[in-house]
């Protein structure tokens, strides 16, 4: 059954994901090729088959482009990842230090606003931690010119692997899954930082030609 293939559009999330990894010189050709084959397949075999094919191509294409991105500039990418790792070590302790400083300075305020203090000490701290990770992701992406996602993905994988290993030890000792969730969220936030920078850069390079 072919459901209105003439209006078929490739999955948006898949298109967005693949665009994050495409080098500037292939910025039109790869999405164009995927779109062309998707349209052809949708009219021949139906949208479901075409969507499934598109997702498969997206995953494989991202794997190849990420590998290629690293091979093209291994040293600059590694430098960006190491810099991000060190920056992460510095940034991850900041929310605690800031909260401790704020508590000491405004002791009378916190004593009358205990709920606000509790929010800052729990959810607020978690949010601040994630904002810090997004900031690290953005910084790494800005330094890794044209290879934003490769650098942030590598950093996220390295930190994620180390963090998950440590969290599993913690989980075995205490049964607390909070640390594990925090490590996964950290890696995701770093990737989001890279995606923000990449999306803004792509928009900046495509806008003038559309005008």
């Amino acid at each position, binding site marked *: 059954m072919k459901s209105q293939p003439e209006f078929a559009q490739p999955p948006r999330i898949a298109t967005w994901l693949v665009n994050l990894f495409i*080098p500037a010189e292939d910025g*039109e*050709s790869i999405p*164009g090729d995927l779109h*062309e084959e998707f349209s052809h397949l949708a009219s021949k075999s139906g949208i479901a088959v075409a969507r499934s094919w598109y997702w*498969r191509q997206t995953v494989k*294409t991202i794997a190849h482009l990420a590998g290629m991105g690293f091979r093209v500039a291994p040293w600059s990418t590694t430098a960006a990842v190491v810099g991000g790792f060190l920056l992460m070590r510095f940034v991850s302790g900041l929310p605690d230090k800031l909260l401790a400083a704020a508590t000491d300075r405004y002791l009378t305020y916190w004593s009358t606003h205990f709920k606000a203090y509790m929010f800052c000490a729990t959810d607020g701290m978690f949010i601040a931690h994630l904002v810090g990770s997004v900031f690290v992701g953005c910084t790494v992406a800005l330094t890794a010119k044209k290879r934003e996602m490769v650098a942030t993905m590598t950093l996220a994988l390295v930190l994620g692997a180390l963090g998950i290993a440590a969290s599993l030890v913690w989980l075995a000792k205490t049964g607390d899954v909070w640390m594990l969730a925090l490590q996964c969220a950290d890696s995701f936030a770093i990737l989001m930082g890279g995606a923000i920078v990449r999306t803004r850069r792509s928009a900046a390079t495509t806008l003038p030609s559309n005008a």
Partner: protein
Amino acid sequence: MSGRGYLGEFEHIIVLALLRLEDRAYGVTVRQEIELRTKREVSIGAVYATLDRLESKGYVKSHRGDPTPERGGRSKRFFQVTAKGIKAVNRAQRALRNMTAGLDLIGSHS
């Protein structure tokens, strides 16, 4: 002897696909040609990663076509094998012929 100048297996296949397709060689046709003849699923990312590498080695060159509606208004990137690329593929073919000469490959290890 240095391995520099020799084509890898997938590079070899890509160059042969470009030679077969002549002036119709762009991402979609190259990918489909390889799938049709090798019976293995190939991603568009693998095709472009290899084509970009071949271009940086000077074995292929590319130019842009016009945008078309069926591609969401995006242009095609056509590829062509250079004289250096043809020499490289001839060298790879000759090496393969020399290595397989005298071997009875059909059913030799079945």
